[in-house]
Every structure is written in structure tokens, then in C-alpha cells.
């Protein structure tokens, strides 16, 4: 069965004063119906830009999607007319943003901002919209929804605002939800509740979910497949199990090592990956991770390793591991 969404070799560049930033430089991934995948990587590796590219929300004139295709349910979104794209956004693909504080309009009531999408896509009347908004707020676990729809964002706590964001995203029962770091802003307890909520919703409505995060801890629990991004490229992807237990890229191994583990003795020093992500304006020739990689070989410096299958449905872009050795494996 063809995947719901196929992102093929997307290139999204940004024109800045200091030069062209290659934020997303040839990224491909796919999502099946009802499946949850995770897009993982340090901040600034292009996760969010790739998500925004799907919805064609990249800020014009600075940012442009130069190449690639985004096949969603058999249709290439990049070829769609603006008018059709409007019909797609919110109705069939929606997005949950990271900062509930700034991503909700402070001067409109919460109910109004939820019913907006419904009024446009399902041409409900404002009254019906508000009732549906109340139902959605109930669904996402906000008490006394029928009163709360008339409240303003500043009257909601951080966690509740994020729940409202989720309500906005699921309003028209989209087929695909992109969750861009949905829980980074809230504390751990609320984080768990929100993720559970999102998972139940995706299960209930058989919605596909792209979970974008830099927090590897939650990825294992929620995503079936994991795509690790670094400097605008996918450098490793596979099932969560494979990637967690047999990381085939030094960067993935480094990421996993830096996650503090409960089962380890407390005295062990926290590990971190030295150095800074490369400058995306003039990325180095060869592998982008080379100057931070402890196992780099001459070939890494000159040639950019392509993604190659290293195990069943497990791909990596690293010369060292493609030669069959994984020195970073303990």
C-alpha cells in the first residue's frame, strides 16, 4: 500500500545577507497511513523547515523550495495551485507548533480560533463552529469547555494553550498531523499527558503523525520509525528498535549517549558531542559531521556519503559503517 506521504529529495534554501543557507539539502522520507514517524536532530538541523516545506509555509521571499517532490495521497503538493493548497492545509494536513505562547492570536477567543478552520473547510456557521470547538476542547481534556471557548489565550496556562493548539490541529480530522516539538515548552508531567493525548487521537482517527523533536527519550515510545537529521540531511533512518540498539552513524550514537540513563551509576560524566554544527552557508566537502566525528577516515573528508542500506529497512550515510565496522558500538 503506497505511503500517505512521500517526501523526495526536498531542497529548501534561505537567501540571507551572508549568503544562501541550505537549510534542507535533499531530504527524503515517507509516512504510511496511521503511522507515527519521528524526525530527530539538534536544533537548527532543518527539521522544522522540512515540515513547513510540506505545507508550503516557508517564509517567502527569503525561503524557497528549489527542488524535490512531496507526494501526498498521490498528489504532488508542490505542483498544486495556491487555491487547492488552501484546501489542503488544515483540512488534510495540519501542524501543531512548538510555542503555544506566540502561536495563538492573543486578541481572539480560543473558540473562535478553533472554529475558524471548520468554518472555512466544512463551511459551518460560526455558532456550529463554536459548539464543535467546545467538543474539541473537551476531547483534548480542557475542563468546562463550553465556557472556556469564550476565554482569551492569556487566560490559559501553558499546558492548556498547547491542548488548544492540538484542538486547532485536529479540528477538521486531517489525515496527517505534523507535531513540531509539541512538548518542549511544557514541563515533564504535562509533556507525558500531551503525548498520550496525541497518540490516542492518532489511533482513534487513524491519523499519520510526523513527530519532530530533539528529545530522544520520547521518540522510542511513540514513533515506529526514526529519521535522524543533521545539517539539512537525513543521515540515518530505520525502525526505532534498530536505530536505538544498533546506531549506524556516529552522530546517532553520540545523540543516544548524551541521553542520561536511569539505569547507569550516577557518577558517570554526561557525554556530549564536541564542536558546533557546520555553517549551512558553506557546508564542508564530504561528510558534514566530519570535524566532530572521532572515527573519520580520509574518504569522509572528500566524498559525501550517500544513504545506503546497512540492515533490513535500516539506512545510514557513513563511510565507516558502510565498510561494516561500528567502532562506536560498545
Amino acid at each position, binding site marked *: 500500500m503506497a505511503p500517505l506521504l512521500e517526501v523526495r529529495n526536498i531542497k529548501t534554501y534561505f537567501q540571507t545577507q551572508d549568503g544562501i543557507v541550505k537549510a534542507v539539502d535533499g531530504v527524503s522520507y515517507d509516512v504510511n497511513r496511521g503511522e507515527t514517524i519521528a524526525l530527530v536532530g539538534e536544533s537548527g538541523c532543518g527539521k522544522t523547515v522540512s515540515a513547513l516545506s510540506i505545507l508550503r509555509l516557508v517564509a517567502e521571499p527569503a525561503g524557497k523550495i528549489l527542488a524535490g517532490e512531496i507526494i501526498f495521497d498521490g498528489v504532488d503538493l508542490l505542483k498544486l495551485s495556491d487555491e487547492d493548497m*488552501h484546501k489542503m492545509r488544515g483540512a488534510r494536513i495540519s501542524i501543531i*507548533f512548538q510555542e503555544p505562547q506566540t502561536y495563538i492570536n*492573543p486578541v481572539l477567543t480560543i473558540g473562535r480560533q478553533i472554529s475558524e478552520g471548520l468554518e472555512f473547510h466544512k463551511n459551518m456557521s460560526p455558532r456550529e463552529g463554536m459548539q464543535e470547538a467546545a467538543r474539541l476542547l473537551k476531547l483534548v481534556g480542557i475542563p468546562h469547555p463550553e465556557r472556556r471557548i469564550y476565554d*482569551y489565550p492569556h487566560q490559559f496556562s501553558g499546558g492548556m494553550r498547547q491542548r488548544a493548539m492540538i484542538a486547532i490541529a485536529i479540528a477538521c480530522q486531517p489525515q496527517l498531523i505534523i507535531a513540531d516539538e509539541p512538548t518542549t515548552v511544557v514541563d515533564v508531567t504535562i509533556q507525558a499527558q500531551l503525548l498520550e493525548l496525541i497518540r490516542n487521537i492518532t489511533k482513534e482517527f487513524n491519523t499519520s503523525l510526523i513527530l519532530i523533536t530533539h528529545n530522544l527519550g520520547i521518540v522510542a515510545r511513540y514513533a515506529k520509525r526514526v529519521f535522524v537529521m543533521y545539517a539539512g540531511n537525513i543521515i540515518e533512518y530505520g525502525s526505532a528498535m534498530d536505530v536505538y540498539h544498533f546506531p549506524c552513524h556516529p552522530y546517532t550514537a553520540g545523540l543516544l549517549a548524551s541521553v542520561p540513563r536511569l539505569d547507569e551509576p550516577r557518577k558517570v560524566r554526561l557525554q556530549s558531542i564536541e564542536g558546533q554544527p557546520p555553517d549551512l552557508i558553506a557546508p564542508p566537502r564530504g561528510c558534514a559531521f566530519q570535524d566532530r566525528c572521532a572515527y573519520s577516515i580520509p574518504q569522509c573528508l572528500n566524498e559525501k556519503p550517500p544513504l545506503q542500506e546497512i540492515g533490513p529497512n535500516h539506512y545510514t550515510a557513513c563511510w565507516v559503517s558502510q565498510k561494516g565496522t561500528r567502532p562506536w558500538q560498545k
Partner: protein
Amino acid sequence: MLRFIIRRVLWLLLVLFVVLLITFVLMHLVPGGPWDREKALAPKVIEALNKRYGLDLPLWRQFINYIGGVLHGDLGISYSYSDRTVVSLLVHGLPKTLTLGVLAFVFAQAIGIPFGVAAALKQNSPVDYASVLFATLFASIPGFVLGILLMIIFSVTLHWLPTSGWGSVQQVLMPVFCLAALPAAQTARITRASTLDVMRQDYVRTARSKGILESTIRVRHIFRNSLIPVITIAGPMLADLVTGSFIIENLFAIPGVGRMFVQGIFARDYTLIMGGILFYAFTIAFLNLVVDILYGAIDPRIRYE
């Protein structure tokens, strides 16, 4: 909300009282009295006049009488227009000053906001540069200089418009334009800046992610937020227009409150001066109060519980 209004109204009354007090003191400090004329009046005549208008009483007594009068709505009789009460003079002058002020205000918003918005939506386009240039040009030329330049062009050379007077439409055009030029420019600039700022906000991107039409996004999300700063300056701006028009009234010889007020100062017409200041101070304070209340309406975050 009501408690807030009452508190503000009380403050307003106190501010008015203090303003009147300061004016009263300043007024009496200014050299020369109402009765001094080139052809000196006989001392006895001056004495009689002072008695008639209560100027022989000690100053603090006069002030208390005046405040007493104000509370009863009696602003006293003008010295220079000896048969007219100050209230009737104000009522005579008010329509002209208010028309000037309000027309200029409307003109300023009607020109400022669209220009500002257009410039923001089409940033770095010819529209943007034109509007910024227009805004800066008119923001820097003082009203009465602009008035003079217009007069030279339209009255002296082209003879299209009369240079002064009141009543016909032609007589209103130039004064209103001069008065409105500065506020129009300021409105355009602030609208442009705030619209640009709002367009970069994240909630606009959320709105776009819902797929709703760009036009709806503009009205419901962008303008609803970007017009807040415009409204906050609208109140003081209207107050400035109504009270600042006296230079334009002088230039175009329009018998409004402003012109009367300035003549009042030169004629040492104490009751007229006090009446004028009362009108101006009240307008400014009242309009500021209106803006604060309005402000709560448009920006829920500022609701005064």
C-alpha cells in the same frame, strides 16, 4: 470596569483643577492687565471695571469664585467681548475648531492607515518607498509652514483657494490638510511598523496552517493586532488636533476657539483664557480616558478587572 472609570474620572477632575490653578497663577503673573490700553483709562474707570469683574478681590478669593462659577456652569463674562459670556463665545468658536480637528483626524486616519498597510504588505516595493517618503516628508514640515507654502501656491499664484475665512468648503481644504499632514504621516508610519511586526508573528503562521484565505487572515489576525498601537495614539492625536489648531486658525483667520484663546491671552481676557484652558484640558484628559477604555476593548490582555 466601572470602578476603573470612576477612579479615572476623579483623577481627571483633579487634573483639571490643578491645570486651572496653574493657568490662573501664570495668567496673573503676565505683565499688563485687561484694562491697560495705549490711551490710558481714567483711574476711576479702571477701579469701577475691576469692581464690576471682581478683580479687586484678593487672588485666592477670585479663584474660589471662579471655581464656584465653573461648578455651576458659569464661566464668567469675557472682558474683551464685554457683552458675551465665555460659554457663548466657546459655543460660537467650538464648531469651527471641532470641525477642523475632527476633519483633520478623519483625513489623517483615512490616508495614514491604508498607506501604512499597503506599505507593509508590499514591503520594499515602490508603494513602500513612496509611503515612507510621504510619511517622513509630511511628518517633518510644521503645519503653519506647510500652510504658507500651500497658500503661496494655491492662493497667490493659482487663485484657486481663498487664504482665509470660514464657511465655504474651499476655505476648509487647506487648513484641514495642513493640520492633518503631520498626524497622517505619523499614522502611516506606525501602521506600517506595527503591521510589519504582526506579519512576522507566529500566530499568523498558525492561521495560514489552517488553510484559511489570506484575506481573512489579514482582517481577523493581522489588522486586529496591528491596529492596536494605531488606536493608542489616536486619542492623544485627536486631542492634539483639536487643541493644536490655533496656529492654523491664526494663519487662515478662522474664528475658532484657538484663535480666540490666543487673542484672549494678548487681551489679558482672564475669563476667556480660563475658559479656553478648561476646554482644552478637558478635551485632552477626556480623550485619553476614552482611549484607555477603548484600548481594553480591542486588546483583551489589558482588560481592567
